[in-house]
């Protein structure tokens, strides 16, 4: 029984922004490539929930610590990890911590969890939603997504066999709290700092693992400093086929989640007994050496079995393109006229807390007398009128079918029109909710849908999180039963 990474899961949002779409509007810039775009109703917390759901295999070990890391937290002062904890339905005794700020804290989060793996079962979720000003490289080359790892004492698919870090203080990339976009110093300055730091960490890590360059099967070099990453990768002296594919041209650079997504991608397809080396360039360099175990194929198969998509499937599958105008509107850079309707109200803290199971974990009440499912949960059964004969039942991972739908041009939304669907869940229960990640012209009665955790809106500085339906297709049918 080995300690290390036990399971993993990745989430790339549905939407892609083509570089050509930017160039067409702004009149200049590259026309090849694309990036992953979080929808208007996603933030780093919801991205993390989706990744976390994919990492938490049914019947897996109970998570003791939830660690959430992002450079773009939904809240400061208020812990975001508790939202993720609630949405994942983790136990009350599970701790929940934020590690927010710089991308380096994401790698630090995973390294800390791995360091404690022999004693604690930890879910680490690394999430990022990158913001850049219109026409800039950050807007074009960044991407949004999240990745989650369960680490623990038993059943590891990959064990740590070495790690090393090299730290230094220099100004490469920075963002002042309150500002949305980050700034970078002249590129060549950062490159000259990163290259030697990377070499040191790489060599130290190999030494710690008692390996040489030639023993490594998969090398991941990641960082927001693209020029430094390229430069480092070219000088490591490892075989070209060992270099993990660069996903940047299709999904963009995921910042705090980039190294993790690349690691998940490798774990999706690695063989047992292989060595993986992760080199993360972020205000210093962290190197992590892992060796996969014989448990890996079983875990890969189990994920496939319940329909969890791999990173490469999410990269390749037929996602929809978002128009540049919608992208700008989603990021608050294009102010669309709101409908002449009252602004949404912030939800009330006590009522939200009372309905925590429903709102965050999508827990219905099922009548123990007659089996009728109630969404939202109620105490009196609609079907047999029994009172207080309910058991809670989480339906977040149960798929459903669209019974009927409507396109609402009047309701408030950051991205109108709202698609309203009546969903009949497999095994019983009906709920009326919004359909997201969908095109209004393509919805039909009978469509299969799953549930996804979203930020419905923000009002008076309070984020309103809840579940929406989204279309299920072959590639993202993880909610199918």
């Amino acid at each position, binding site marked *: 029984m080995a300690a290390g990474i036990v399971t993993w899961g990745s989430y790339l949002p549905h939407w892609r922004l083509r570089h050509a779409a930017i160039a067409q509007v702004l009149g200049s810039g590259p026309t090849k490539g694309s990036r992953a775009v979080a929808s208007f109703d996603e933030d780093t917390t919801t991205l993390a929930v989706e990744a976390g759901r994919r990492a938490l295999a049914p019947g897996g070990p109970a998570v003791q610590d939830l660690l959430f890391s992002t450079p773009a937290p939904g809240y400061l002062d208020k812990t975001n990890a508790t939202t993720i904890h609630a949405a994942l339905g983790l136990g009350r005794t599970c701790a929940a911590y934020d590690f927010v700020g710089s991308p380096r804290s994401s790698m630090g989060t995973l390294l800390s969890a791995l360091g404690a793996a022999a004693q604690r079962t930890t879910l680490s979720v690394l999430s990022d939603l990158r913001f850049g000003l219109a026409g800039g490289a950050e807007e074009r080359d960044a991407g949004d997504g999240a990745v989650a790892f369960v680490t623990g004492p038993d059943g590891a698919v990959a064990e740590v066999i070495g790690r090393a870090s090299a730290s230094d203080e220099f100004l490469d990339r920075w963002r002042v709290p309150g500002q949305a976009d980050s700034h970078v110093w002249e590129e060549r300055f950062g490159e000259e700092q990163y290259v030697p730091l990377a070499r040191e960490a790489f060599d130290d890590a190999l030494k710690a693992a008692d390996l040489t360059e030639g023993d490594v099967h998969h090398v991941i070099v990641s960082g927001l400093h693209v020029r430094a990453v390229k430069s480092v990768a070219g000088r490591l002296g490892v075989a070209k086929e060992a270099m993990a594919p660069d996903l940047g041209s299709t999904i963009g650079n995921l910042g705090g989640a980039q190294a993790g997504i690349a690691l998940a991608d490798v774990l999706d397809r690695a063989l047992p007994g292989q060595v993986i080396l992760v080199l993360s360039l972020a205000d210093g360099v962290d190197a992590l050496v892992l060796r996969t175990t014989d448990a890996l194929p079983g875990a890969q198969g189990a994920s496939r079995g319940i329909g969890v998509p791999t990173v490469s499937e999410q990269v390749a599958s037929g996602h929809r393109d978002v128009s540049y105008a919608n992208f700008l509107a989603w990021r608050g850079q294009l102010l669309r006229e709101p409908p002449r309707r009252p602004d949404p109200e912030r939800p009330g803290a006590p009522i939200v807390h009372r309905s925590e199971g429903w709102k965050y974990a999508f827990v219905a009440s099922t009548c123990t007398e007659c089996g009728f499912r109630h969404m939202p949960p109620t105490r009196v059964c609609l079907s047999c009128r029994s009172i207080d004969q309910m058991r809670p039942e989480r339906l977040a991972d149960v798929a459903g079918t669209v019974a009927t739908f409507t396109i609402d*041009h009047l*309701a408030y939304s950051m991205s109108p029109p709202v698609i309203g669907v009546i969903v009949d869940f497999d095994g019983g229960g009906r709920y009326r909710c919004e359909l997201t990640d969908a095109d209004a012209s393509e919805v039909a009665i009978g469509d299969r849908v799953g549930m996804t955790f979203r930020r419905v809106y923000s009002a008076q500085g309070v984020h309103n999180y809840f579940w929406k339906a989204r279309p299920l297709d072959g590639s993202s049918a993880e909610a199918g039963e």
Partner: protein
Amino acid sequence: MSSKGIRDQVAIIGMGCTRFGELWDKGTDDLLTEAATEAATSAGLSIHDIDAFWLGTMTSGVCGVTLSRPLKLDYKPVTRVENYCATGSEALRNACYAVASGAYDTAMAIGVEKLKDTGFSGLTGIRPVGDGTDPGLSSPAAFSFLAPSYAHKYGVDGAQLKEVMSRIAFKNHQNGARNPRAQFQKEVSMETIRGAPLVAGELGVFDCSGVSDGSAAAIICRTEDAHRYCENPLYVKALSFVAGPAAGPIDPGYDYTTFEEVVRSAADAYAQAGITDPRAQLAMAEVHDCFTATELVLMEDLDFAERGTAWKEVLAGTFDRDGELPVNPDGGLKSFGHPIGASGLRMLFECWLQLRGEAPPDRQITTVGPGRTLGLTHNLGGAPGEGVSFVGIFGTELGGMGLDA
């Protein structure tokens, strides 16, 4: 349902109804003053002769002072009631019961809504603080589930159903065009209705009722006193109100082609009034056409047409002003808009005019006559599968239906 009813125990002896519309120069107080004064005057009374008041409003005020302040009532009982879009009918129902109980000799039911001061499009509900999980669909969206479900269930082609819905709007605007109290007093062509931009689902702008201000009021007394105030009173035959368990949004068995609340309240009202064949026995009906698809479904829920056939009856003109059973001869919510507290009493006002032969000749219906003296008002609140429904029946003759005259 053991609803006994109060058939023929109370009578309407006076009514008032303001113009409905975007009344920028009138406030809630003005509307209340005008409707109350007109109603009292028509019964030959002063406002101060009336013993008790029921005020229906959803958003334009809370508590009885909303009425007692503008009317300067002298320490009379005033009850403010709210029951969503059926608020006006709820005021009427409670005033009727108060008089029937013997507690008061006369009562006023008055409804008002001043919607056009908010600056918003459509209705804006009043909701308690929530947990943020309500999907927040608009009213048109909630009702737009009806059309495709109806079309699917009865095999009606989508384009054909759009024609049916347009025909309902066309009819109601035709009726409203002759009504000086309506918000919209213009006929609208089928082309304009059909081609209007979509608001939600298949519902275009002309499938939705307007948003307006207005007020209406009725004076009620015991039947034995009615002729002291009025030569030709309107007797209350039935009042039925139900609130459903809001099953639709959570019950996979609900198919969005009916309002169970309406079916139940209609059956109750027909039983109270002794009606067995509403389509033949009623001379007219004022129904809650908040959306054209609603009126279509109501024709079946109120038993004016067999299940799955109302769409054909609409096209055949059965419910036109000169049809077999005129529905919304005043123009309905379609032409009047829907000032929530006022609508139910505005419907009653049309019965008051038509059944007593006081509608202007150019819009007097011809179905009223010997053996056919009853009118129905139907008021709906909420949304398909989760709402409240009121059905009232009123007539110019005591007894009737050959049962216990």
